[in-house]
Each structure stands twice: as structure tokens, then as C-alpha cells.
């Protein structure tokens, strides 16, 4: 008997609902519904179980079912002074993992990919499959959690995840800064939670122990005109995926307004990023992967992991 095999009746019920035949997809929060393509009309929508299964604040891990609202998860974590890499913007935990998009304060909270320690999903054959493990460090076998995170449900329907949690910093302060190269802000603060730039103004999230935050703000003040502010600016709708160096020159090639995440590379803009050609050999691996995990193509038909 394997120690990781799922014995959860709710997951078994979900697997039964997914069944073994016919196009199928999970009804998520719908916040990023058309990412990766439009679901074909004949796909049957299934409900994935929700709820926090086990939360051990002292271990800094939480086991949560995919249908749980991310806001509910964050509320539970906050009660223990913790947070996690999943966005708080709404939608479900399963959706957030399937999409794999990081938070605005990714520098401080880490990436979704690094947060998923274990994943349970229902396969194309209708089995509950477990990958990874419920501990913070693990190199036992192939890294299924990495493969499923950001897969847009094309390899398996995510049912439950074990996530790494992080302590909330004791103090967090947003500053708005003018007349400064945002890259200098990034360099002057040791571990900023976020550094943003809209081509003119910059925003920085300074966090940590109060005394450190105060001294970092003093240092920032020697480089820039700063004012304290409630939070980040409004983000335009389209997400560009760039290298950090390209993002810090976003004004040169993005038309319209934008907010760039400095040191990360993600840019939110009013225009959409032109489609990029995938690496042709990596694309072959991806199509073999899909063929092997979902030979009948029944999982999330119409969607592709190349967004």
C-alpha cells in the first residue's frame, strides 16, 4: 500500500463524475475562463470539491481542495499571520494553480510554481493521481506538481493541492517614487515585495521588520522623491511576459499605458502581447506530453497550454 494514495471519498466522487469518457472541464471561478483558448461546446462541466482539508500553520503547509475560493483560503491563512503565493484576486485555488500566474508582489511572496508541493488530479482515465508530496523539500521521483501548474487543465483536472505558506511580513509599506530609475529602487532595497513602474512613476513595496523598513525607506528617499501610498496602481488587463531587462524598457515597445514589474519581467498593458513562436522542440515535447496524459483529448478540449 502506498502512503500517498488518496483515500478521500470526496476526491473519489469527483473522479467518478469526471468518468472515463467524453470531453470534460472543471467549472472554476471563471476569472480567466478563456485563457489558452475557448472550451469546445460539447465539454461537460464538472464541479470540483472545495474546502481546506488540513492546515498546519506550524508546518507552513496547507492542503486545500481545488474548488476553494482563493479569497477564503487567504482569509484562513491570514488568521495565522500567513499568506501564500496564490493570487488573492478571486477565482478558485484549482484555477489559480492551473493558470499559474504569479501575484503582483511575487518578489516577496514567491511563485505559484514553487508553492505547489503536492497535487492530486483526475486523469483522462478517471483515476485520482498524486504527484509530489506533503513536505517542504522533496526530490522523490519526477516533478508532477511542476508539470500540472500552469497546464490549464490539459493534462489532468486538478482536485487538491498542498501549498507552501509564508509568514506575512510584520510591516508592509507601499511608496510611490518619482524621478528615479526603477532599477535603482530594486537595487537599493534588499528584498522588496514588489517594484512597479508605469514609464513615469514607480511604486515599491518595502516590507520586513519595522526598523529595517524604516531604514530602507530612508535609503530610498536619498534616491527619489517619495510619498507613501495605499497600494499599487490600477493594472491594465493584458499580461506581457518579458525578461526583467525588457520590462524595464517597456516604454520603448509597448503602446498605450502599462505597469511593469521590475526585476520580474511581467508587464500589464492596455494592448495585448504579440503571439510568440514557441521553441519548436519544446513544442514537440508538449504535444507528446498531451498525447501521453490525455490520449483521447477529453480534458479541457479547445484549450492549449501555450497561451
Amino acid at each position, binding site marked *: 500500500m502506498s502512503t500517498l494514495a488518496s483515500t478521500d471519498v470526496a476526491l473519489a466522487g469527483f473522479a467518478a463524475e469526471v468518468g472515463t469518457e467524453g470531453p470534460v472541464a472543471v467549472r472554476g471561478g471563471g476569472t480567466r475562463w478563456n485563457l489558452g483558448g475557448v472550451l469546445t461546446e460539447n465539454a461537460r462541466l464538472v464541479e470540483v470539491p472545495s474546502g481546506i482539508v488540513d492546515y498546519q500553520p506550524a508546518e*507552513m503547509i496547507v492542503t486545500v481542495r481545488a474548488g476553494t475560493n482563493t479569497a477564503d483560503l487567504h482569509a484562513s491563512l491570514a488568521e495565522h499571520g500567513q499568506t501564500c503565493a496564490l493570487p488573492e484576486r478571486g477565482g478558485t485555488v484549482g484555477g489559480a494553480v492551473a493558470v499559474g500566474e504569479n501575484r503582483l508582489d511575487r518578489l516577496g511572496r*514567491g511563485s505559484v510554481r514553487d508553492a505547489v508541493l503536492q497535487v492530486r488530479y483526475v486523469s483522462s482515465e478517471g483515476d485520482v493521481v498524486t504527484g509530489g508530496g506533503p*513536505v517542504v*523539500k522533496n526530490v522523490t521521483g519526477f516533478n*508532477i506538481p511542476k508539470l500540472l501548474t500552469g497546464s490549464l487543465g490539459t493534462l489532468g483536472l486538478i482536485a487538491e493541492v498542498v501549498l507552501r505558506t509564508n509568514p506575512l511580513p510584520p510591516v508592509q509599506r507601499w511608496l510611490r517614487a518619482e524621478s528615479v530609475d526603477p532599477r535603482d529602487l530594486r537595487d537599493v532595497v*534588499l528584498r522588496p515585495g514588489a517594484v512597479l513602474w508605469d514609464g513615469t512613476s514607480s511604486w515599491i513595496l518595502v516590507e520586513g*521588520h519595522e*526598523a529595517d523598513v524604516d531604514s530602507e525607506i530612508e535609503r530610498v528617499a536619498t534616491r527619489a522623491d517619495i510619498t507613501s501610498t495605499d497600494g499599487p496602481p490600477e493594472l491594465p488587463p493584458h499580461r506581457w511576459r518579458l525578461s526583467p531587462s525588457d520590462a524595464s524598457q517597456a516604454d520603448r515597445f509597448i503602446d498605450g499605458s502599462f505597469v511593469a514589474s521590475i526585476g520580474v*519581467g511581467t508587464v500589464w498593458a492596455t494592448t495585448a502581447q504579440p503571439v510568440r513562436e514557441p521553441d519548436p522542440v519544446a513544442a514537440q515535447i508538449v504535444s507528446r506530453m498531451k498525447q501521453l496524459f490525455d490520449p483521447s483529448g477529453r480534458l479541457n478540449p479547445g484549450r492549449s497550454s501555450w497561451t
Partner: protein
Amino acid sequence: MTTWWRRPSRPADPLIADLHDALAPDRVRNDGAERSLTSHDASVFDGGVSGPVCFPTTTGEVQAIMRIAERHDRAVVPRGAGTGLAGGAIPLGAPIVVCTGKMNNVVQIDLENRIAWVEPGVINLDLSKQLRPKGFHFAPDPSSQQVCTLGGNVANNSGGPHCLAYGVTDAHVLAIEVVLPDGQVAMLGGLEDEPDGLDLRGAFVGSEGTLGIATKIAVRLTPNPPAVRTMLLSFSSVRDAAQTVSDVIASGVVPAALEVMDQPMVTAIERYVGAGYPTDAAAVLLAEVEGLDAGVDIDVAHIDQIGRANNATEIRLAGSDEERAALWKGRKTAFGAVAQIAPDYYLHDTVVPRAKLADVLEQIYEIVDRHEVLVLNVFHAGDGNLHPLLVFDAREEGTLERVHAAGAEILRASLEAGGVLSGEHGIGVEKQQYMEELFGQADLDHQNRLRQAFDPACRANPGKVLPAGHSCADIQALRDVPTGVWG
């Protein structure tokens, strides 16, 4: 000046001949000495004599080797420094061995993107040395960092004492150029935070050479912290030390390192280097915090308080860089110290929930007692990553059997506590037969699908990681440890 040379005659073996043509004769070794050198890594397993051993210098040469392997229907085993502890780099059935040692250039240090492009044969510590004057380092610091390669770190998703706060290799690799077993080159991942498509980079890290050969890697650079504080806490029971670790993590402090050594280990270290650790303590905890001045002092006070609440018998704070180095010296020479005790060792590696550390340790002491084997413990306590080190003399009749039996029980105790088989050394050939005790059939089947998507012909390092019904080679005696390796 006239130079003249004679073209060496083409080898009779068509495989060797093809390899000579693709590389250069002096970078294809087929003599018995070289081939048996690569039959081992730092594990207790023996793979037998390998096929030809190749030393490519470029991605193109690695591609050529893969294509030749395909033509001659040979398996390929990537090899870095051979410090792996699970037998990942040992040859099974005379494969072509591809040593990355001559691909050892730091290609580019890109401070704007805070990354470096490196070739796979670059030594872990060499990279950090090059980065230090620029104010950065590569965070994963395996104890073998003086010799192990970044390609090996990527393949094993290696960790180290300082991976507690920063994460293991996986969190520090953005992109990997890989030569697939069919000879094609793929770029996995990218410098973007969220590259398009499936996270093939994430799938490759930790795949132990079974998906292809990494030929170029973009690694993340971590800024050196302005303030570092190192503490030593002594306890009269291992349970108190373990509880302190759990309580520190639970309190929201994320130390850079939390390392525990038990009394047998401390005694061995003291005999070896005299690091000044208290030999009367049941366990010693090294705690390190990093960051800015004010914050690290707050963290130190916090850890001090938690240590006292858990009956610490002594708490020391290093007052200078020299004192810090002295505190680390003992931990860093731990493996060298072990070599003084008995001729043979077997280093285990499991992870358990941090709250179970004390219970599992007590079980480990009970298990080794019953099997009459000696154990020393030095481990990454902050991650729950246990490293029970069994020391023995293989020449004594029946010892190997007892070591094996004790090891198997330790693995099972870790699994029963809700843990996993390996935190950093990987599965290799060592733990394949235990995979079914952790994973179900469908789980393993899906891992195999991941593997097949990269390597449909099963040509890259076959017979590793997943249980495949082949029998593992025999445990065998410790070989001499080269000086410096145990850093």
C-alpha cells in the same frame, strides 16, 4: 617550421570510430581504467564497467553523441563530478558516458536580469566565487559544492544548508538548454517569470539525467545579505533541539539555515577539527539569520527566547566573521570527521514533517540499536530533511545485511510519519524499490509518461528513478575520500 603528424588509424569498433570523428580522439576514452573510473559515483553502488567515456566541449558535440548513440542503439548517461549519492551517474549495461567536465565556462553574467548563463560542468563554488565581488551568489550550497557541477545540481535538484530560506536549485534555475535523446536541442523555460506553455524546465530539474543532457543553464543570482548572524544552541535532548526548530519555523522567522548535529556527530567533529562544539550536549543547533542589521538582531533575540523556552543549555552568538566561520567549520567538516570513525558509511536522506523530527529520530536510534549499527545525525532540520549516517566496517561478516535492513526501516519510519523518500539526493538506483511504498501505480505510471514525452526511446540514463524490475547493484565499501571533497 614543418609540422607533420600522422592521422591515427580509425578504430575498429564502429561506435568508437563514429565518436572519434564527432569529437576528437583524445576526448573519447575507451580504456579500461577510464571506463571503470566512471562505474561509481559517491554512492555505495557499483554500475560495472561503462561503455566509451566522452568529453564534449560544445552543445553540437553533445548532439552528435546522442545521434551516434541512437544509431548504435546505446544508452547515454550524463555525468558531472560523480558526487551523487543515489547512484544516478553510474552506468548500467555499458552505456556511453557523457562527462560535462570540459563544458565549464561561465558564459555570461547578466546583472540587469540577475542571472548567469553557465555551462553544465561549472563547479558550484566556482560560480559563487566569481559572483562574490559583484555582490551576488548562487544560493544552493550543497556540502559537496567544492566539486559538484551545476549540471549535477540541476539534475538532482540539489539543496544545501542555505536553501531553507532561499529554496533548492529548482527555485534558482530559469532556463535550460537541453539536448534531447534524439539529438535535438530544446530551450526549456526562459528569462520571463512565467514562460509560455508547460513548465518543462520544472519537469527537467531533478530528473536525474533521464530526460536529456543540460548543456546551458540560466541560474538566478541572489544578492549577498548585508548582515548575517550565526548562533549555536546546545540542548540536553535531541527532542528539545527539534522542538526549537519547529517553534522557530512556526513563529514566522525564516532563518537562512537551521542545522542540527547529534552528540555522536558532535563528538566525531570535535575529534576531527576541534570546532569548539560542546561534546556533553545531546544535540547542537546551528541557526543563521540574514538580512538587514536591525531585523537580524530581532530574529536572534527571538531564536534565543525560543531556545531558552526549550531548555537550551548554552546559547552562543558569533561576534565576528571569524567566529561565524569557526561555528560553520564543524558542520562543514562533518563528513570528513565520519571517515575517521569507521571505514564505510551510508548516508541516508529522507524528509518528514518538522513536527515529527523528534519522534522519527527516536525511532532511528531504536532501529540502529536493534541492528547493531552506529548512526550519526547531521541534518537540515529547518526543512525536516534527515541525514542519518550509518557507519560500519563492511569487512565484518553480516554487517552489510544489517546496514541494509536498518536503512530500509528508517525509510519506512519516515514514510509512516508522512514523509518522502528523498529531500535532496534523489532516487537513482538507491530507492527505486521503495517508490511503490510512497506512490500508487497510477502515480508512477504518470511519472513515466512525463519521462516518455522527453525520451520516448528510453535512452537517457535508463534503469534509474522509476522501479523498472532491474536489480540494483551491490552495496560496496567506501573508497578513499579525496581531500577537500567533503568541504
